[in-house]
């Protein structure tokens, strides 16, 4: 075991640190903060740190795995804003296009994703098929050089704001396995026949939506991968999520914030943090967060050595889900009545951020696979237990 960096890696780390000294003006106070500072966005783009792990030919930075880790860690330590503004484009749409896209698709979409020109959304879940995604029924029929799409998607995050959608449709209803016959399309959200109806979530946000498709015509050149290859495109995209550095550093910040809240809150005239039960629970959270960090490093080591990763990332996804729910709930509980007060109340604690968190965790806990789906993945793919 060693945690040493090579000479080149140290030089790269120093370059990142210098850049941060020179250019970091505004720290994010929101945990996954995207920067609205045009100057920052332009400079990190010039550095090719947006899409840093992508090949240079498509406009990425061509960073090694270790360089990507260093960049993320340095950014996280200094609480710098995100690199790039196109969330889903950078997370999975871009990597899918790089792997499966035609040259024309790469030229057309990748630069826009890197520049953050617009948002992408992801048309996967349907009213009847959420966790059981591969059973999806939204229909695509090839007519001439266009697919005609009819059906419905739901829980589509960012749909009300997105310019493009990565969409899964069924192009063949007569296959042996449900994973066959699925095709991936890239759809302009302005295409006639698309109707977006935002859904209000329990925290009052309107970020996800139902999306209806009525005879929506998608040119065949916007198909990603081959017809019937949609499931493979999706799986490879989701497997692209590598380490959990960004999540870990966000949770570390949340923990610091929890300690501050517990120090300032009093019960019987004493800081709550003096209560051994409170301290132990915080330490328990700390152990989970540190475990996530070190799990990530172990899995990273496997990748560097070229050993195949199975579904180990589900381990940290489960931790994150538990921590998102439990940390917010813990704060709301120990704050008592004041913990229930929301922004606008005179009695609200820190603008009601903990009660807000306790209502908004489903964004990350349900999206991308519920905790029980992660447990199925671990049980079936890692432990080899029979499928449901």
């Amino acid at each position, binding site marked *: 075991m060693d945690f040493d960096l090579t000479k080149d890696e140290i030089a790269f780390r120093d370059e990142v640190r210098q850049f941060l000294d020179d250019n970091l003006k505004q720290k994010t106070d929101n945990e996954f903060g995207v920067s609205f500072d045009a100057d920052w966005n332009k400079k990190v783009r010039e550095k090719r740190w947006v899409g840093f792990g992508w090949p240079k030919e498509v406009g990425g930075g061509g960073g090694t795995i270790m360089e990507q880790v260093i960049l993320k860690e340095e950014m996280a330590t200094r609480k710098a804003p995100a690199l790039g503004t196109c969330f889903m484009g950078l997370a999975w749409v871009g990597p899918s296009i790089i792997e499966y896209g035609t040259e024309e698709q790469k030229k057309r979409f990748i630069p826009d994703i890197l520049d953050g020109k617009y948002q992408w959304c992801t048309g996967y879940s349907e009213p009847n098929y959420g966790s059981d995604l591969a059973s999806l029924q939204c229909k695509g029929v090839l007519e001439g050089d266009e697919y005609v799409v009819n059906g419905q998607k739901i829980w589509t995050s960012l749909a009300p704001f997105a310019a493009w959608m990565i969409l899964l449709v069924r192009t063949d209803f007569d296959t042996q396995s449900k994973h066959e016959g699925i095709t991936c399309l890239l759809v302009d959200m302005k295409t006639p026949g698309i109707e977006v109806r935002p859904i209000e979530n329990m925290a009052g946000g309107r970020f996800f939506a139902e999306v209806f498709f009525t005879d929506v015509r998608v040119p065949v050149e916007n198909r990603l991968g081959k017809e019937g290859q949609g499931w493979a495109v999706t799986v490879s995209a989701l497997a692209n999520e590598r380490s959990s550095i960004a999540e870990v550093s966000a949770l570390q910040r949340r923990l610091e914030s929890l300690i501050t809240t517990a120090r300032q809150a009093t019960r019987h005239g004493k800081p709550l943090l003096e209560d051994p039960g409170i301290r*132990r629970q915080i330490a328990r959270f700390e152990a*989970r967060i540190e*475990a996530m960090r*070190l799990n990530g490093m172990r899995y990273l080591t496997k990748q560097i*050595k070229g050993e195949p990763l199975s579904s180990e990332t589900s381990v940290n996804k*489960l931790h994150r889900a538990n921590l998102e729910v439990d940390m917010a709930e813990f704060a709301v509980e120990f704050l008592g009545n004041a913990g229930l007060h929301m922004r606008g109340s005179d009695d609200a604690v820190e603008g009601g951020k903990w009660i807000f968190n306790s209502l908004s965790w489903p964004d990350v806990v349900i999206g991308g696979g519920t905790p029980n789906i992660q447990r199925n993945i671990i*049980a079936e793919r890692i432990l080899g237990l029979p499928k449901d």
Partner: protein
Amino acid sequence: MNFGFTEEQVLLRDQVRKFIEQKCPMSEVRKISQTKEGMSVEHWQEMGQLGWTGLLVPEDFGGAGLNWVDALVLLEEMGRGLFPSPFISHSLACFAIAELGTEDQKQLWLPKLASGEKIGTVALLEETDLPQLEGIQLEAKMVGDHLQLNGSKHFVSDVNTADLFIVAARTGPQTDQVSLLIVDKKAEAVSTKTQATVDKTKREGLLQFEQLKVPSTQILGNKDGAADTINRLFDCGAVAVTAEMIGSSEGAHALTVDYAKNRIQFDNPIGKYQGVKHPLANMYVDIESFKSLLYYAAWCVNESPQELSKSISLAKAYASETVPKMGIDCLQLHGAIGYTAEYDIQLYLKRSKWARPKFGDANFHYDRVASLGEY
């Protein structure tokens, strides 16, 4: 960066695993645990020949000169097989002498320990069961040119088979005025008493002194000067036990996963049902996680000592909190067969309880995480 094992360590793991599978399958574990000694002298001698009894002893004194990351590889495999052996106690005794002993003391004791000719253990705890300096209240009084010990140490692991005890005693009123004394089992005025405990693959008991005279040559290092080493022994002891907990919980988990794949109820293997597969997935998450925490702590012993206390507290707290629950869950997933003496899962359940308080339970270590984190 490499948060994994070297090729040599991978080979060592294979070697240990084969040794245990061939020489000490579960039928043999059961036999050994019925004996008075609770260990196999034959196995111990072979471990001596393989260099494992001297794993942590410097090469200059006949050992292999390896460190706790290497030791954890052995311990994981020993835990997996519930291998009955004084390896942890012995390694801690070697570690104490190597860290604190004078040149003469090292020359005198380490080669015999390294070869396995003598078995060592540490006697740190007392009735209060407190794994920190405040828990050391047994006084060693200066009488003439020697120290005198009168009283007893509790919960001494492998008390029945050890030839040599590294005894923590109080030599002054300040918290850190503590010393480590080398006590030979053969000395008059020393007696041991093995106590009945839950896990028959592990032995422990009382070490008693009646006006024992300890010459100054048997004070490890300097009088009053053992505080740092004792703190490191507590931490390294926790590293060792937690490493064994990785193996033993993986062993219990593998046994249960296997059962879930083969046991048919309601026309299906029970592992098809989420009520069975989800707890097994949760256990996997917990084992993977305290494993990562422990690996880092083991690395800290030599490479980043200032981080050791915090890192091992995170690991041991996590393990002590989750492993006994896993023992219970694994047994329940087996149904009635798990309750029988004949089936092995019950041995793992007992081990999970044994490991929980050793070198500090979850509350102890979470409290320490909070103190060290200044909250």
